């Protein structure tokens, strides 16, 4: 049992989590070599690792560290296919910020 949280965030919350590990759920907009542009209530640049297999247009869950330039250094990625409800994912982020006792260690 461990008290380690990877908070779920969207683009708007990036600068509060610089240097921390986060979870981002979004849509792959563009793939350029080892870089990807993810839309999670705003565009986020993700630096992918070698194991990443993303496809443009699909949903993706990224776990990674927020760089000082607000890009993401991806530690693990997971393709979510096409049936992802992004509004739902963004709502979960907002709810998890409002009810921090359930989601975050302050």
């Amino acid at each position, binding site marked *: *049992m*461990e*008290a*380690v*949280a*990877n*908070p*779920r965030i*969207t683009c*708007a*919350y990036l*600068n*509060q989590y610089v240097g921390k590990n986060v*979870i981002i*759920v979004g849509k792959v907009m563009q793939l350029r070599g080892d870089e990807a542009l993810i839309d999670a*209530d705003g565009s986020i640049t993700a630096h992918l690792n070698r194991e990443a297999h993303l496809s443009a247009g699909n*949903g993706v*869950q990224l776990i990674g560290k927020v760089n000082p330039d607000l890009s993401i250094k991806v530690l*693990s990625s*997971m393709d*979510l*296919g096409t*049936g*992802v*409800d992004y509004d*739902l*994912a*963004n*709502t*979960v982020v*907002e*709810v*998890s*910020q*409002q*009810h*921090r*006792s*359930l*989601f*975050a*260690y302050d």
Partner: protein
Amino acid sequence: MTSYGGYQRTGYGAQGGEDGGGYMVGSQQASQGQGEKKYANESLRPITIKQLVDCKEAYPGAELAVDGLPTTQVTLVGQVRAINPQAVNVTYRIDDGTGMIDVKKWIDADKADATPRFALDTYVRVYGRLTTYNGRKHVGAHYIRAIEDFNEVNYHLLEATYVHLSLTRAAGGGEHQQQGQLGAADGGDSMFVDDGYGAGGGGADSQAIRVRLEPCSRNANTIYRYLATSAGDAQHLAQVAAGTGMSARDIMAATEELLGQGLIYTTENDETWAILDL
């Protein structure tokens, strides 16, 4: 009262297996309440793993309680981070982004081959019983299945929040009161605007502020009210979000309005605001 409660319980002795352990705090309550509580304990509760990490026993030997409510049957979702197969069970380390917990699935000796194994990083839904063993909490799984539709993960997190809120608010918990205060502030706002015309205003806001707030949206008014009443000079986006219950996007739009009206200004960065004194 105590002895009466004790007598009642022996009356129901057939189901008293778990009651065996001597003096119970609950025995001072009416025996009817006791029955209800037992029943509530066994209802299935959706939770985040952080709630399990945080939950404590009311007193040593008591059942683990989440939001003050004894909780045994839980359902959770998370990704499999480690798998540890043993002779009689498989221990999965499950991570849902809010914490990690061990989930033990006991192997049925008769159909050992039928027990499915889950690959690392797959999202699973777990139904199980929250237990402590040697001071370590884990979930004894009745059933684990892989999640096919990713939206179920988000659904679960919202459901866990919903249940938490309906339990804590119904009981008049802390969050309810906080929300109540906010609501009161909100109501106070609209009342103030109303009698602002009638009674010539008796509030703290000057005429200049009222004139500028008027064309702003409801959201902008809520945020202005929040900034005006909160402690400290400047408030960050996260504080405003927590205080008003609004989304980051709505807050950005509303603060844009207030900035345009010259009612607030940004301080350390673009997401921290303070009231501009007129």
